[in-house]
């Protein structure tokens, strides 16, 4: 088997730190450089560890994992709420069974409550035994503090991590966009930022009481970031993540009509202060990770108004590029939020970029551009279709297998 030596590269580790300028691959493994290796000049492109998507929907496993590979992901954690609540052992076995043969790794998370209705506990112990790495409510909350506290106590007893979104269901009610001038101008029902602040403080207080291991997902407000920073400063062992949309997408700059169904997100996109707080949170580490919150492509959003549309958008193929743009070109910080951060949340550090380990990495060329929707047709249902993003994921290896791109194409990089 031919040894390939990627040279003139910027090799980053999971925390986004540069650890070298070249890397060898032989038989799908990172290898020590040896004479006879075929050199591939990456002309300054980045070689980063395979990314982990902490939450997003998986529908058609083969298609969705292929799309993930085009975005540089080698591991995807399936959301517990899409396309169906993951609240039965059979549903977990079905997902993991369908994904078993694909090189891109799939992890499952379970619903915390039956049907995600927030009323009665799902069998999270059996679901854990079936392979789920955490339990949560996805985009949904637990309306009753009593039920939430009991669920957190039970999960703590079993050592099951909980992934919870800070939200007050009554305050969110029928809201469509974040509270602010834009909601008033558009005449759309709003969601106050306080809905998240109340929810996060509730989770933090109950985590202290029950000892539950908590990861706060879908953070979207500046107040939420402050609450998490304060809890971490107090020594509470929580982690937090945000959807790339809440951090990197500004609907006010969209060429779409403000009433376009593709602009509906849950949680809603916050104002400029909220987005800035999320970006700073990623830089400082208060926000440990960024997820795609990938929604399955849905053609109805093209004809529905924002009030009627299902929230969410496809995004897995563009997360890294969207995040790099939001971080003003800081590829290292983006890699940390999509690699080292998710590993910390999962408690599963993966050795990578180390001799002898399976190649699990992506080549990212920031001198090229990606026209959104051109290669990944599902992005036609996203609000950034047709937008040119700086950067291109040229190749992805997952668990030793090249799952996106070709080595030959890397010859023409730059």
């Amino acid at each position, binding site marked *: 088997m031919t040894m390939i030596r990627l040279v003139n590269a910027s090799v980053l580790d999971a925390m986004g730190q540069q650890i070298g300028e070249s890397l060898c691959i032989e038989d799908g493994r990172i290898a020590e450089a040896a004479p006879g290796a075929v050199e591939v000049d990456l002309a300054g492109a980045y070689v980063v560890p395979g990314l982990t998507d902490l939450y997003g929907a998986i529908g058609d496993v083969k298609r969705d994992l292929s799309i993930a590979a085009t975005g540089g992901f080698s591991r995807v954690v399936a959301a517990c709420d899409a396309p169906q609540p993951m609240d039965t052992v059979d549903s977990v076995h079905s997902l993991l069974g369908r994904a078993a043969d694909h090189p891109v790794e799939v992890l499952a998370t379970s619903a915390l*409550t039956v049907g995600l209705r927030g009323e*009665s506990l799902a*069998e*999270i*112990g059996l679901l854990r035994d079936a392979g789920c790495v955490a339990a949560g409510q996805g985009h949904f909350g637990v309306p009753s503090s009593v*039920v939430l506290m*009991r669920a957190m106590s039970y999960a703590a007893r*079993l050592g099951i991590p909980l992934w919870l979104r800070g939200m007050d269901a009554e305050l969110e009610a029928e809201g469509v966009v974040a509270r602010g001038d834009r909601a008033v101008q558009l005449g759309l029902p709003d969601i106050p930022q306080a809905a998240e602040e109340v929810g996060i403080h509730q989770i933090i207080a109950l985590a202290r009481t029950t000892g539950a291991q908590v990861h706060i997902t879908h953070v979207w407000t500046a107040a939420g970031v402050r609450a998490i920073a304060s809890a971490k400063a107090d020594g509470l062992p929580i982690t937090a993540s945000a959807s790339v949309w809440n951090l990197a997408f500004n609907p006010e700059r969209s060429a779409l009509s403000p009433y376009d169904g593709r602009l509906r997100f849950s949680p809603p996109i916050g104002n400029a202060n909220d987005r800035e707080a999320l970006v700073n949170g990623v830089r400082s580490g208060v926000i440990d990770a960024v997820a795609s919150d990938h929604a399955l492509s849905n053609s109805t959003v093209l004809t529905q108004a924002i009030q009627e549309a299902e929230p969410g958008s496809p995004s897995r193929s563009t997360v890294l590029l969207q995040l790099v743009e939001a971080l003003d070109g800081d590829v290292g910080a983006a890699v940390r939020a999509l690699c080292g951060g998710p590993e910390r949340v999962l408690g599963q550090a993966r050795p990578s970029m180390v001799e002898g380990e399976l190649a699990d990495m992506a080549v990212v060329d920031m001198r090229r551009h990606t026209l959104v929707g051109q290669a990944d047709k599902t992005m036609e249902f996203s609000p950034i279709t047709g937008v040119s993003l700086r950067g291109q994921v040229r190749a992805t290896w997952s668990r030793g297998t090249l799952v996106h791109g070709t080595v030959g194409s890397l010859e023409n990089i730059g």
Partner: protein
Amino acid sequence: MMLRIQRERLGPGVLPSNREFAALFGLNSKRFSAAKPGTLVLHPAPMNRGVEITDDVADGTSSVVFDQVANGVAVRMACLERAVVGTP
């Protein structure tokens, strides 16, 4: 010593299902095999067979559940008599 799960007293969110309780916490022959030789199995009854205890353990040679239940009747009678009649 096993006890009946009193689901009628439990509110929502305390326990997912009898099936999960049995799988994670119930006393079955595999778990009991880890006990020290000579260990006795007790339960004041009524038992939720298949929930907190399996049939083979409840009816097994190490079980003294039915002796415990029979003795429990006598003990309760004695307690009631002392409470009602007083010390002789």
